[in-house]
């Protein structure tokens, strides 16, 4: 019908260069360099204590919670939103999944019940965020701030401000296992990251996410259901919060309303350092992963060197700024 295939209209031209690709690489290159510098500092100051498999696993294990949520957050921010409630969702999911009721159910039908309820609670809360933002048209910042307050409050009410201890042996055994020396939770982190990368870069869902974040009006006029897609994005993030809650439950063997306190800033910082634009339309999972690893390695190197919290904080701020400036210089260099 249309003339796309009409040979008379197509002029053969050599393939163009790929500036986008190279800019993407250069941006990640900056992060990789930052990470490498950090590792060098780690090796120089802490030697084998830093450069050991055990320590690497420690870093990765620490990264699971932030990292899994950061994958979901990459979608939301790329889609033009923001979510401040992630820490509270982790708390609520962990509390819900460890109530005596849920644990009794888990004893009957298996530990999957706990995993299922954590993920379900995260997903439902994420969906509520999504509905408020997409259909209620509440600014994401406010909608998710409200969710932050409510979800943490609800977690406290449910847990009655007590730490709920996981007594289900199956749960502890499964997530505490280390096949081939790699902890199960690290494997799950890797799987979530790969799934996120695939979803963002290789599926129509990912393509729509970029479009919705880049120019929602243009996306709408091109026939994309922008509202529904936005709701999906927050729901997806809620799901990753639920998964992260399971990771934290496994690490701490508890559910608690204090879990995930101030996690939101860490997660957003990692995503943004990773090169995802806060204004939407651009985001990379690889960058996010690097961002998470940089923060975690930083903390690890600090701990290995016995720095005081205060000094650490001062240094952290300075290092973040230097890293970003460095990264910019590299990204802006002519390819």
């Amino acid at each position, binding site marked *: 019908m249309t003339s796309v295939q009409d040979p008379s209209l197509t002029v053969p031209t050599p393939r163009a260069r790929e500036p986008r690709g190279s800019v993407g690489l250069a941006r990640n290159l900056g992060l990789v360099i930052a990470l490498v510098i950090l590792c060098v500092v780690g090796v120089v100051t802490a030697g084998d*204590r830093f450069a*050991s498999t*055990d*320590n690497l696993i*420690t*870093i990765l*294990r*620490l990264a699971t*919670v932030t990292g899994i949520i950061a994958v979901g957050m990459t979608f939301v921010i790329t889609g033009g939103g923001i979510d401040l409630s992630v820490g509270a969702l982790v708390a609520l999911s962990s509390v819900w999944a460890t109530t005596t009721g849920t644990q009794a159910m888990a004893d009957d039908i298996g530990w999957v019940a706990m995993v299922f309820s954590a993920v379900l609670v995260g997903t439902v809360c994420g969906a509520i965020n999504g509905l408020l933002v997409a259909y209620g048209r509440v600014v994401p910042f406010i909608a998710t701030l409200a969710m932050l307050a409510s979800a943490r409050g609800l977690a*406290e009410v449910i847990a009655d*401000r*007590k*730490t*709920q*201890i996981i007594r289900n042996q199956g749960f*502890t055994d499964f997530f*505490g296992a280390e096949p081939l020396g790699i902890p199960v939770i690290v494997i799950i982190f890797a799987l979530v990251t790969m799934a996120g990368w695939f979803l963002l870069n290789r599926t129509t869902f990912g393509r729509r996410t970029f479009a919705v974040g880049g120019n929602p009006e243009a996306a709408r006029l091109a026939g994309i259901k922008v509202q529904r897609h936005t709701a999906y994005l927050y729901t997806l993030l809620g799901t990753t919060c639920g998964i992260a809650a399971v990771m*934290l439950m496994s*690490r*701490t*063997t*508890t559910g*608690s*309303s*204090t*879990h995930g*306190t*101030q*996690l939101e800033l860490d997660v957003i910082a990692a995503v943004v350092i990773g090169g995802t634009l806060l204004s939407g339309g651009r985001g990379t999972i690889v960058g996010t992963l690097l961002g998470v690893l940089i923060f975690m390695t930083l*903390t*690890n190197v*600090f*701990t*290995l060197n*016995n*720095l*005081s*919290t205060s000094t*650490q904080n001062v240094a952290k701020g300075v290092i973040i700024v230097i890293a970003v400036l460095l990264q910019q210089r590299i990204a802006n260099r002519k390819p």
Partner: protein
Amino acid sequence: TNGSDGGDDTSAAVGKSNTDNDKSGDTVTIGFSAPAADHGWMGAITKAAVAQADQYDDVELKVAEGTNDVNLQISQVETFINDKVDAIVLLPFDGAAMTSVARKAMDAGIIVVNVDREFDSPFAARTTVLGDNYGMGVSAGTFVCEDAAGATDKIVTEIAGIDSLPLTQDRSRGFKDALKSCGLKVSNRVAAEFTVESGEKAAANLLQAAPKIDYLWNHDDDQGVGVLAAINNADRDEFTMIGGAGSADVMESIRAGDSVLKATVVYPSTQAADGVKLARLLVQDKAMSDLAEIEVPRQLKLSAPVVTAENVDQYLPSAFRS
């Protein structure tokens, strides 16, 4: 030595016990991890632990970043395990949440000394040094009961600390139980966040909520500075205030007797220092010299005495500066 000179009183306090056990022995590496020192009492805990370690030339203390993120604190303990330290003195942000990693450390042959917030498994620590949070509430409540002398129409209010922490719940429960025994109850309760600012804010609202008060128990002397500021701002002095934790400023104020503050309940800030001492003894296979027992006990529960104008001079030297 004494706290009123503004010096580093806590470290002075840790130095005063001297026994044969303090003679130098095999070098001991101890890992130390505690919640974020964003609070006077918690800061004093870490400082006392470091000062205690400095007293020994056979102790190397590795201090991890104080944190309120259990995930990070677990990772710190994992790092200690990787480093193969001899002992870990652990003041968990949340005792239950740190249990499994502490157990992992014990399984790896590391002696774990649990401080202040208790693990939920006896296998996770070799010995435990506990403050008595429930006892704090009981002490404060008992003080109120005695002071009220049988009157059951007194209005009692409470400014709690961070409400989502189990220790706050224990303190409130003890307070309530003690009050119940003499027919009183808490009529207004607000929670602050262990900071001066939050104390001021919570107290300012509380003073509006309760136009007349007879007793006010404030869980924490750090936030107490803000509570007192709010009381001054509102020009209120019709009630008796009881503090918590036992900071040097509060004790001085009690001694001076020039404010509504008449008493405070001590919550020892030397617990971690004791933890360090015990860890060293355990690694060096020594016993507690004042006990006949040849093993270090499984648990030590510190008492929560009430400090009033009468006995303040006794406690002031070991008080911390907030």
